[in-house]
């Protein structure tokens, strides 16, 4: 695979001394979906804005398809589409005109067939003659995507595309993203919704305080950092954990009727068999057993809080 987007030691600091980006380096391969996770103010939007040319970097370099975003900004920007976080549209303009404007702005000639294809894909064809102000919030967000796709970008940035939208529309967005990926578009999305990253991303990057904490294949990340828990529920509550179970580092729940055992799914020996034998030897009777895998959200929270994953 080839890196279509290459970011090297990208820094952005402001006059007041605030460092929004502290030397971010990242390669994004063609055709992949990368989800950038991070709390508010982590630097996600600054990173996107810098790559897209909205913000000027303090230092570092970015290339898109091998074109430097500063020295070859025309070639670089032609490859990029951006769907901003805020709904920013001219309210009195018609859907068709605003999408056509975007295509022209990126140097493309009129291509009604292409625009029709985009609008149909986004269920906007019937609304093409409507003024933007007549559309619902969800439809406006689709218009933003249509505008970003109007010039046929190879890299698409989606800055919190599903912020504030209902569940149905969110699922629609995920489908749109999946279709774009199939069409070969590289997608970088920022999100607060961990389930979004879990559902659609190939790789996950975690950014906090202007630093990229990690970038990893989503499944690998889950496997490497995801801990699994087994909850052993007892028929009779106990006051303390029996001595012969001490080596398992169990946690007793508040009610005293469940023992919680945390283990690493990648470890050679998970210790489950030994645990269950020891529980039986301690004279405890099992009522039920449940397992639970830590979500990407927990991994994310642990990473940004500096705690164990």
């Amino acid at each position: 695979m080839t890196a279509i987007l290459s970011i090297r030691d990208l820094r952005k600091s402001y006059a007041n001394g605030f460092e929004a980006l502290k030397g971010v380096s990242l390669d994004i391969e063609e055709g992949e979906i990368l989800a950038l996770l991070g709390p508010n103010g982590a630097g996600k939007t600054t990173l996107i804005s810098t790559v897209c040319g909205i913000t000027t970097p303090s230092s570092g370099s970015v290339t898109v398809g091998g074109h430097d975003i500063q020295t070859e900004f025309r070639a670089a920007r032609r490859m990029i589409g951006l769907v901003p976080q805020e709904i920013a549209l001219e309210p009195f303009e018609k859907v068709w005109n605003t999408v056509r404007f975007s295509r022209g702005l990126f140097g493309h000639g009129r291509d009604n067939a292409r625009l029709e294809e985009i609008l149909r894909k986004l269920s906007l064809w019937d609304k093409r003659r409507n003024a933007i102000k007549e559309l619902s919030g969800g439809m406006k967000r689709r218009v933003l995507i249509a505008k970003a796709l109007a010039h046929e970008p190879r890299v698409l940035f989606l800055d919190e595309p599903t912020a504030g939208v209902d569940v149905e529309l969110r699922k629609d967005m995920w489908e749109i993203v999946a279709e774009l990926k199939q069409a070969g578009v590289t997608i970088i999305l920022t999100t607060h919704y961990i389930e979004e990253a879990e559902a659609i991303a190939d790789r996950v990057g975690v950014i906090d305080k202007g630093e990229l904490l990690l970038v990893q294949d989503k499944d690998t990340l889950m496997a490497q950092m995801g801990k699994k828990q087994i909850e052993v529920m007892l028929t009779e509550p106990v006051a303390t954990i029996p001595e012969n179970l001490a080596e398992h580092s169990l946690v007793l729940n508040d009610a005293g009727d469940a023992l919680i055992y945390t283990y690493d799914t990648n470890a050679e020996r998970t210790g489950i068999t030994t645990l269950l034998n020891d529980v039986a030897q301690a004279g405890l009777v099992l009522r039920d057993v449940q397992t639970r895998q830590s979500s990407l959200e927990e991994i994310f929270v642990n990473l940004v809080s500096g705690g164990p994953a």
Partner: protein
Amino acid sequence: MNWAAVAAIYRFEMARFFRTLAQSFLSPVLSTSLYFVVFGTAIGSRIQEIEGVSYGAFIVPGLIMLSVVMLSISNASFGIYFPKFLGTIYELLSAPINFIEIVIGYVGAAATKALFVGLVILVTATFFVDIRIEHPFAMAAFLILTCLSFSLLGFIVGIWAGNFEQMSLVPQLVVTPLIFLGGTFYSISMLPPLWQTITLFNPVVYLISGFRWSFYGIADVPIFWSLLAILAFTGLCLAIIGWIFKTGWRIRS
């Protein structure tokens, strides 16, 4: 040059104008007619001819300049401020275009709209007074240069403005007084000597004087100075805009 982008911006801006064509057309016709009724007929009938030109005809170039200057500023400032206000400027900043192309698109559209209105006023005036244009090419050049230069100023105002109030600050508090005191409705030779000297520091005097010269061959200041003034003003605006885009002042963080 990304001419497709220039055309896209120009077309998009002109679409706003055509959406309100009746307003764009009727408003200048009505206001010009009112000026003629008040200044040309009611007051003008009591004022004698100025250098062989009836007062009604004398004020026509000034009236055209008044509207063209104000509209150029408001069109261009609104054109670039509105994307800032709405947040749609992200698209301009992330598009493969440079500042020259952005300026050509926005300023070109603003100047076109102002030029259209200027011509509407000129045609309207012919219904009230007899107008002659002695130097038609100079008239066209002055009109076009005024539309362009004040659209450039409007563009700067739109970039600078942080809110709608600030946007109307420059046209209302600076430009309007300069136009009214710049000989729109009178010849500066009608002023006392001290005021004649002070008035020469008003750049609009050179503009209106040159424009009036193209109509009737009469001028308050030599035509060369008028031409130099409008060119210098255009150059200054271009230099400021160049600096704005180089530094990203008020548009790029």
